[in-house]
Structure formats: structure tokens, C-alpha cells
């Protein structure tokens, strides 16, 4: 009660007002652009699942309950049987068993395609050629479809720079929302009291529950911005080194017509497993020329990063590995940024969580704009009313109780300011 009669010091009030202004100005002028980026990003998170729902060819239905999953060689043979002129470049197994394999092939007319292959039968169920929905959503969200010409796309800079006002909005939002932690205990979403109240409640409620998500998205996006700047300034701290090559001595001479003495893909997968037993291989790519390796890769104990092996296709020697432990601390941090941004490292449940919070963030942007519009409309209307009111009429004098009550009301509204 004492609080109500004794107003807080003026200095404190004006500083919170300043923070509120900063909070409004960080996102408001850009809201439509941020809204677009958040919305396309949310869709991009689950684009693989959208494809799965839309196209039966992307699904992996076993012919029977106990049908075993085929090995890489059987897949290779099945694809060559159905498309004899296709050259297989790589086979990738999505982490989720309900998805068909993706087999990248090259055709004599120079075109390429990603074939959806049933992992149990090897049947080519469909192909992704021409329009790549996933790639399109990613490009639309990440760089506004703008080209990468000798350096990062301008669109990439425009989008990733939004991370700065986003982080600023998060911080100032928490500063402005006095005692925001009380919102966790007493959530409030008033529906029947007009748009302004609803969007205000929504903005605050969604905001406090999204704090970790917004922080992740903002920080990872700041890394995307940094990465582009570093690349365009030719700064590199990579420990990857030059890509490995098969030495000339290992490449045999062959008489015309004789088959290439290559180890099989299944053998390469076995070697990968023998070398790193905890690795779950999710892709294998075939040599791109006589001096390149089989590359096998997948997620290991640290699920965020891929680990890869380069296997000599002639003698099966593992000639290069890139494990989590081969990375520097800085690389562990920076390479974790992308999976943290997209949420694609733990399965469907996490993608759905990301999608949900992505939509929530999209609506936060929208509700922020709505609050501002509604308030401005109200304030403008009030200003117009004041201007039109006859000057002669004095303001209605307020009685003491009303004054006290409006003080309480003002106080409450101050707490509720988004």
C-alpha cells in the first residue's frame, strides 16, 4: 500500500522509460522484415518433415515388420538396376528411420538429382529435381535468395545483422518488464478485454518463456554475421588443413577393360565402424576422381557435430579423420552454432520444439507491432478528441478517490508495459 502513495523516484522512472523507448525502437522500424525472417526460419526448421507429409516418396515404408535395412552396396546395385545410366555420388541416411535414403546421382546429360530410395527394398520411390523445397526455404530465410559472388551474399549480411536488434530486444525487454519472473508463476493471457490487452499479455507471456530460445537464435545469428565478416576479410582459424589426396603410389595401373580394384562401400562402412565404434554413419560419398577417398561421416558421442573419415578406396586405409577431438575449442564453439540455430541434431521432437518457439517468436514480433499500433491509435484518437473539444469547457475535475484509483491503475499499467 505504501508503494501506491509513494511514487518511485523520478530518475528510476525516466530510465525505465528510456529502456522502453529503446525496446520499441529496436524492432519496430524493422518489424515486417524481422517477421518475415522469423516465419521463414520456422518453416525451414521443419521443411524436411513438411516434405515427408507432402510426398509419399520421401517416406521409408518397410515391406514387412522385420525387413532388414539394406547395406550401401545393395542400395548401389538397386539404383544402378533401375537407372542404369546414373552414376551414384553419395548416399545419405537420414537420422530418422521413417525417411527414405537420399542418393545423389549424376546423369549423362550433365544433370544431377537426389533420388529417394527405400532403405528396405532399394526401390527408387521418387526424385527431387528442379525445385528443392528445403534449399529454397533455407535460402529465402538465410540470404533472401541473393547470390554469393566471391564472398558472402548481401542478403546473408542483412538477415544476420538482425541478430543485434534481436539480442537488444531480449535484454531491454527483460529490463522493462519489471519482475518478469512473476509471470512464470502467475501466467496471464486476457482474451476478453480488447486487442491491446491481449497482445500485451501475449507479448510478455511468450517473451518470458522464450528467453532461452531467443538468446540461442540471437547469439548463433551473431556468429553467422561474424563468420561472413571473417570470411570476406580472409581471416581463418580453421585447423582442417588441405584436403587429403590418395598418393600416386596407391593408385594402380589398369589394363583397358579391367574393373577398378576398389573396396566395396560396405567394407568402407565396416572400416569406419571398426575405427570409430561410436560413430553412426549417416552418409558415404564416393571418390570424385582417381585420387580421392571414400568419405564416411556421421554423428558421434557429441551429437552437434559430424565426424568424418577419409578411406583410401584401393587399400582401405583410413588416411584422414576429423573428429570432435581434432577440433580446437574455438572450432567446437563455432561449429556448434549452426546445429544450435536449426535444432536438427536430436530428432523430430527438438525440431518441433524449435518450430513452436520459432512461431512464438514470429508472433512476438507481430504482437510488438500490434501493441504499438493499438496504443498509437488510442493515443492519436485521444489527442484528436482533446484538440476538437471546445477550449472553453474546462477539464473535468477529478475527485480524490478517482485520483487515487487512477494512480493504482497507472501503476499497474506501468508494470504491464511490454
Amino acid at each position, binding site marked *: 500500500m505504501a508503494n501506491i502513495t509513494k511514487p518511485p523516484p523520478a530518475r528510476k522512472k525516466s530510465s525505465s522509460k528510456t529502456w522502453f523507448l529503446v525496446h520499441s525502437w529496436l524492432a519496430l*522500424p524493422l518489424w515486417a522484415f524481422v517477421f518475415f525472417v522469423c516465419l521463414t526460419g520456422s518453416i525451414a526448421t521443419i521443411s524436411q518433415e513438411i516434405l515427408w507429409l507432402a510426398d509419399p516418396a520421401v517416406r521409408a515404408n518397410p515391406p514387412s515388420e522385420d525387413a532388414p535395412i539394406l547395406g550401401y552396396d545393395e542400395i548401389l546395385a538397386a539404383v544402378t538396376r533401375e537407372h542404369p545410366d546414373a552414376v551414384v555420388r553419395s548416399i545419405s541416411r537420414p537420422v530418422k528411420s521413417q525417411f527414405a535414403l537420399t542418393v545423389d546421382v549424376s*546423369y549423362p546429360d550433365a544433370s544431377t538429382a537426389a533420388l529417394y530410395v527405400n532403405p528396405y527394398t532399394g526401390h527408387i520411390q521418387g526424385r527431387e*529435381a528442379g525445385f528443392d523445397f528445403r534449399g529454397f526455404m533455407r535460402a529465402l530465410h538465410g540470404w533472401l535468395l541473393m547470390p554469393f559472388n566471391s564472398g558472402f551474399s548481401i542478403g546473408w549480411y542483412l538477415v544476420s545483422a538482425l541478430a543485434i536488434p534481436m539480442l537488444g530486444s531480449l535484454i531491454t525487454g527483460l529490463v522493462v518488464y519489471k519482475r518478469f519472473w512473476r509471470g512464470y508463476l502467475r501466467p496471464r493471457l486476457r482474451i476478453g478485454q480488447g486487442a491491446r490487452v491481449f497482445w500485451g499479455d501475449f507479448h510478455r507471456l511468450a517473451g518470458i518463456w522464450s528467453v532461452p530460445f531467443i538468446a540461442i537464435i540471437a547469439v548463433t545469428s551473431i556468429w553467422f554475421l561474424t563468420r561472413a565478416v571473417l570470411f570476406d576479410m580472409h581471416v581463418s582459424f580453421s585447423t582442417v588443413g588441405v584436403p587429403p589426396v590418395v598418393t600416386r603410389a596407391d593408385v594402380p595401373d589398369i589394363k583397358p577393360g579391367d574393373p577398378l580394384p576398389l573396396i566395396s562401400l560396405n567394407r568402407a562402412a565396416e572400416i569406419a565402424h571398426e575405427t570409430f565404434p561410436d560413430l553412426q554413419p549417416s552418409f558415404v560419398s564416393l571418390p570424385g576422381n582417381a585420387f580421392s577417398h571414400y568419405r564416411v561421416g556421421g554423428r558421434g558421442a557429441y551429437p552437434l557435430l559430424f565426424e568424418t573419415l577419409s578411406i583410401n578406396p584401393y587399400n582401405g586405409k583410413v588416411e584422414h579423420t576429423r573428429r570432435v577431438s581434432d577440433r580446437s575449442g574455438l572450432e567446437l564453439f563455432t561449429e556448434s552454432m549452426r546445429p544450435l540455430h536449426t535444432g536438427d541434431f536430436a530428432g523430430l521432437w527438438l525440431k518441433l520444439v524449435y518450430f513452436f518457439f520459432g512461431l512464438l517468436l514470429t508472433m512476438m514480433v507481430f504482437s510488438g507491432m500490434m501493441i504499438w499500433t493499438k496504443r498509437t491509435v488510442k493515443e492519436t484518437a485521444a489527442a484528436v478528441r482533446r484538440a476538437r473539444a471546445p477550449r472553453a469547457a474546462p477539464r473535468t475535475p477529478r475527485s480524490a478517490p478517482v485520483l487515487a484509483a487512477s494512480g493504482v491503475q497507472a501503476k499497474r499499467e506501468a508494470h504491464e508495459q511490454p
Partner: protein
Amino acid sequence: MSSHDTVSRWKRWRFHLSALMLILPIAFMPQYFHRVALFSGDLGLGQRVIGEQTVGPWSVRLAEFEERPPELDGGAGYMKTFSLALCDGCESSIRAMYLRVGKPRSLRTAGAIFFGSPYRQTASVPIPDGTTPDAMLWLTAEGWDGSVHHASIPLATASPTTAGWLRKRGGR
């Protein structure tokens, strides 16, 4: 329509102006799909097919991947990407294809090695400082039997854009 109305409409709408950013993806969409088609090979070997080149007993179809001047690739200097397709069934006799500016002295200096499928493989060829517009591109084919064959083609024929760019740079 009073000026007061215009002002208040401007005041209300100026905060929605960032929606104009959506013009960017719309404007770049045709170019985006063109590049997707180029990279996937739907447009063929590259933007400009140079033609069939005979190298020893074989032949390859050579193309300029993109019709534009070489690009600066960090410390590696200027690079220009070419693509090629091996003759029908030749993958069983050709071990590797290489391309460089100027005549190679040995197989070890044959230049950039092509990478990809027999139907479309690409190589980024360094364009060294001091390359003149009348320079020659040398194509090297290495057979699985160990045999080595060369062919040369004027850079100006392979990539008029690159020759033009070199002329403009004046031999720098």
C-alpha cells in the same frame, strides 16, 4: 485530402516500410533459380560450352562453368572454373583430367585436377599474375594404363570473358 491526413498516414505507415525488404527475394528469385539450375547441371555442363576437345585417343566436352571473369579466392589468387564431360565409356580408360594455364612440364604440374562424375566434373584453374590474353590452356589426360596426353586451346577461345578481363588488367 488534407495535409494533416497525409502526415498521420505517413506516421502510421512508416513503421511498416521494412516490408519493402521483401522486394529483394522477389527480385532475386529468377537469378536464384537460374543458379540452382546451373549448379545442378539442369542447364548442361556450364553456361557456355566450348566444344569437343581431342586429347590423345580420347575426347572431352569442355565448358566454361560461368560466363564471367576469374574470381579472387583469398590467398590462392584468381581462379576460373571449367567443367567437362568424358567421352562415352571413357571413364574406364581415363584416370584423371587436368587443366592449367601454360604448358605443363610434367604430370605433377599438370594443373587443377577435375573432380566429379564422368558426365560432369569441374576444376578451378588458377590464373597466375602476368597471364596474357593470348595465353594457352593446356588439358592433360592421364590414362588408367599410365599414359599421358596433352591438348591445348587458346584461353581466348575457352573463355573470351577471361581474355577480355586480362586485356583490361593489362598483364598485371
